[in-house]
């Protein structure tokens, strides 16, 4: 305890964290309010919304997976060149040469699959709990956009290893875009930067996957979380679950 006190009761610590560490309620509130990383939380939360059955923590799981994806993705970028056929050679290098390369790639891959699942289940949870009801209509729309962004992120990342799986998965997908009336062929041409899935397409998917879509997702998540706070905290099951209906009044 003396070490803790010595660490926290000096000018340097106090210049960063302005409140003490003693377990007073004031300090607990300050910890949340005075910290840029925590201030999206409210100082107090409803007991009900902490229960697993009110959210199953699916939004939190999605966000955690996105953080894991960002970190592992940034590290993988250091060994990846978005060009043909270097991209595939880099996969082999990750597999056989780079220390822990396989582990990082596995982690990125499985986290991506898990995030698609988590975001989808998050949407289902919100639907069945009817947590999209006014005033949360707009946040539901933001959530749908985030689901689409998640799918796009996963899909653009799918091409990057430049193996058979990637190439044909993306060929089939972009031909689906071509089936769209009027705008389809032109949009596919812009997306691929050409008529075939080639070098330009790889570079475009790389830029979308590593810069554009993550930025869009971060922006969307910021709006999403902000609205959750502004609309009165998470709507576990908006307090009116059937099972509760007899108990509340």
């Amino acid at each position, binding site marked *: 305890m003396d070490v803790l006190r010595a660490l926290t009761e000096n000018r340097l610590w106090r210049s960063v964290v302005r409140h003490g560490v003693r377990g007073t309620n004031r300090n*607990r509130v300050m910890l949340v309010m005075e910290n840029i990383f925590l201030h999206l939380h409210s100082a107090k939360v409803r007991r009900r919304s902490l229960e697993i059955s009110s959210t199953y923590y699916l939004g939190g799981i999605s966000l955690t997976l996105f953080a894991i994806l960002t970190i592992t993705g940034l590290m993988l970028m250091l060994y990846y060149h978005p060009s043909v056929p270097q991209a*595939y050679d880099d996969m082999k290098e990750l597999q056989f040469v780079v220390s822990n390369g396989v582990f990082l790639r596995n982690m990125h891959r499985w986290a991506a699959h898990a995030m698609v699942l988590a975001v989808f289940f998050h*949407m289902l949870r919100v639907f069945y709990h009817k947590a*999209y*009801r006014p005033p949360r209509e707009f946040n*539901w729309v933001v959530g749908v956009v985030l689901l689409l962004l998640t*799918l796009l992120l996963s899909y653009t990342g799918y091409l990057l290893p430049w193996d058979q799986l990637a190439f044909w998965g993306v060929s089939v997908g972009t031909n689906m875009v071509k089936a*769209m009336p009027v705008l389809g062929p032109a949009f596919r041409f812009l997306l691929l930067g050409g008529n075939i899935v080639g070098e330009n397409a790889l570079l475009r998917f790389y830029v979308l996957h590593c810069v554009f879509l993550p930025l869009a997702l971060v922006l969307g998540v910021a709006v999403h979380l902000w609205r959750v706070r502004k609309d009165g905290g998470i709507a576990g099951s908006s*307090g009116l679950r059937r099972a509760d209906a007899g108990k509340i009044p």
Partner: protein
Amino acid sequence: MSQFRLEKNNDARAVPRRIALIRREAPARLLEGREEVRMAAPHLLVREVILIQICVVVLAVASLLFDAPLEGIADPSNTPNPAKAPWYFLGLQELLHYFPPIVAGVLLPALAIIGVVVIPYFRINVEAVGFYERPWRRSLAILGAVTAPVSVLLVAYRVWAVLVPTLLIFSLLALPAVPRCPGAWRRRLSRVPLSDWIMTWFVAVASILTLIGIFFRGPGWTWTWPWRDGIF
């Protein structure tokens, strides 16, 4: 719209009989008592840290056990057989097997997205009234009139994978209308709102199509049994 303040008091001695009237479409906000909130600082943050730890540990173990797939280098002149999209698009790919691309690749996904987006704006299910908790005979007739031609269409295209869950969900929905329906079933089913029925139908169809795409499709997109031929 009149707002009601809903106060919660579980002290049976202070308030021996408690009653509150809430209009169903009113945004129900529970003004909870003091004992119903927790400080975020230890309670929520600890849960978040545990959540992050669980996610990292589970992913790390999965990554040590299972390797991400990597096939041969991309070859534009040689389509692998079967050529499968990522698993979350296999439901769409399975649909593409039955319908032309404009329908399965563009129309149906666009309809699904639009349908999901408009849910809160059309006041869908804001009242959360069960299908049988209001006059239901006309609604059931309309639903039947929609389901019948859709089923005929599905039979014409031989889309059994969509037909079976459609009929199953519809029969569950219609079950309480049958006089001989067991009481427990009727009580449970009649409380489910129409929007939940539709979403459940959508989820059932999407998961069945996706599972078929993942496990039951082999070379040339022919039907295979995963336990006999393996997963392609």
